[in-house]
């Protein structure tokens, strides 16, 4: 268990604008949470998180925006939904963590897991270029960013040898339409 997971958060909930925004974006009523800890109990990666999933909810309720947006938990969450299927109050926790990731990017806070964000960005860069993901390029660019050419060399070579990593991307022809998805914000 990491440092913050031992902490009991005892402040009184007053309701914050931040909480309202997260609720609106995530589309789930996390105020129904009664902190039974089921979510963290079933989460395969809670050990790697700085706050347990319900603690993230509590911090949101308390309006402690900076701590939440700078937490590792929101990035570690893979969206497996183990938590929400067992939540007695149907809180969609992964919708909350992912809304928070987006807010963290928009607000340009210090991201606790820059490697994970970088990976997501490289995935989307290949989609932007080809309309589909291109694993070899994602891996090479990620390695370049990490300046780490040696870990996973063996696996990479094996994948190439077994023709699992394609050298050339699989592509969409009507890229104009894919770019539209990337430009929607500007398009309104």
């Amino acid at each position, binding site marked *: 268990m990491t440092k913050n997971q031992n902490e009991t958060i005892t402040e009184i909930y007053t309701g914050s604008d931040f909480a309202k925004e997260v609720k609106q974006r995530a589309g789930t009523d996390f105020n129904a949470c009664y902190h039974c800890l089921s979510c963290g109990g079933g989460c395969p990666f809670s050990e790697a998180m700085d706050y347990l999933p319900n603690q993230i909810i509590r911090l949101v309720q308390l309006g402690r925006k900076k701590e939440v947006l700078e937490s590792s938990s929101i990035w570690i969450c893979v969206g497996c939904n183990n938590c929400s*299927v067992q939540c007695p109050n*149907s809180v969609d926790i992964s919708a909350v963590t992912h809304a928070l990731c987006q807010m963290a990017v928009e607000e340009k806070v210090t991201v606790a897991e820059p*490697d994970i964000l970088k*990976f997501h960005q490289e995935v989307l860069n290949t989609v932007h270029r080809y309309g589909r993901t291109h694993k070899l390029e994602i891996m090479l660019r990620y390695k370049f960013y990490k300046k780490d050419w040696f870990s996973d060399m063996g696996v990479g070579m094996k*994948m190439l040898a077994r023709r699992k*990593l*394609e050298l050339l991307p699989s592509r*969409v022809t009507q890229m104009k339409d894919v770019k539209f998805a990337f430009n929607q914000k500007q398009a309104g």
Partner: protein
Amino acid sequence: MNTSPIMDVSYFPGCSLATTAKENDHSLRELCRRIGVNLVELDDWNCCGSSSAYAVDHDLALGLAARNLFMASPDRPLLVACPNCIIRLRLAHQELSRNELMRYRFEKKWDKPYNRDLKILHFFELMENRIPEYMGKEVSEKLKQLKFVPYYGCMLNRPNTLRNEKNYKGLMEKILTGLGAQALDWSFASQCCGTFLSVARPELVTSIVNRMMDDAAKTGADCIITACAMCHMNLEVRCTLKQPVPVLHFSEILSLAFDVESHNNWFSRHLVDPRPVLKSRALI
């Protein structure tokens, strides 16, 4: 034996099946031919947005999924072979169906009304509907007591808004035991594989995958059967044990049961070679 007429479905392979998991794609196509399903690949499909768009940009995730949904033919269901893609596409479909403003925006772009009745077909549903009528005495020994542990990962979980979708727990065991394989019990059937953490936090995934492989070996399984290309990849790539258990795609093993012979290029693409096991059971 078979009675149902040929069924036409649009097919969305997704990025994994189109590249790293081609063997999953090819075996699925072959299998569909055997069970009277005519797959028509969705022309010029694009990435569903995957976990990455979902994590960092909601509008982008919706926009990418929407392009595929708008292109899907109105008169047949859209089959999705990847458990992650199907969640992304179904969430987008739900949003386009419920959110008038969003729908209007995309209808304007695509210059046609959105088909709210589009059926997005889970490939488990297709298997459940089509395979039983091909099961019977003649095939009940096909898989020759091959011992397997079923691996669903997180694919039986759904986000809350999709809660009413059917849960296919036990489907792989039901079908494969009906074809003569032997399902073994283990405690990792619904263990999440870690998906993208495999790249940025490989140590987390290795620790999970090794535990799983170890348990699968202890049960005496010949192989692990998965229906998710991402799980397949993480199990193979991140396992550091000396003797990993081979992992087969559900579509591959089904194809073998249905006498598909053009499987030469599938098993050589696995990082953990399943051919010795399959040969020992005279399945290839």
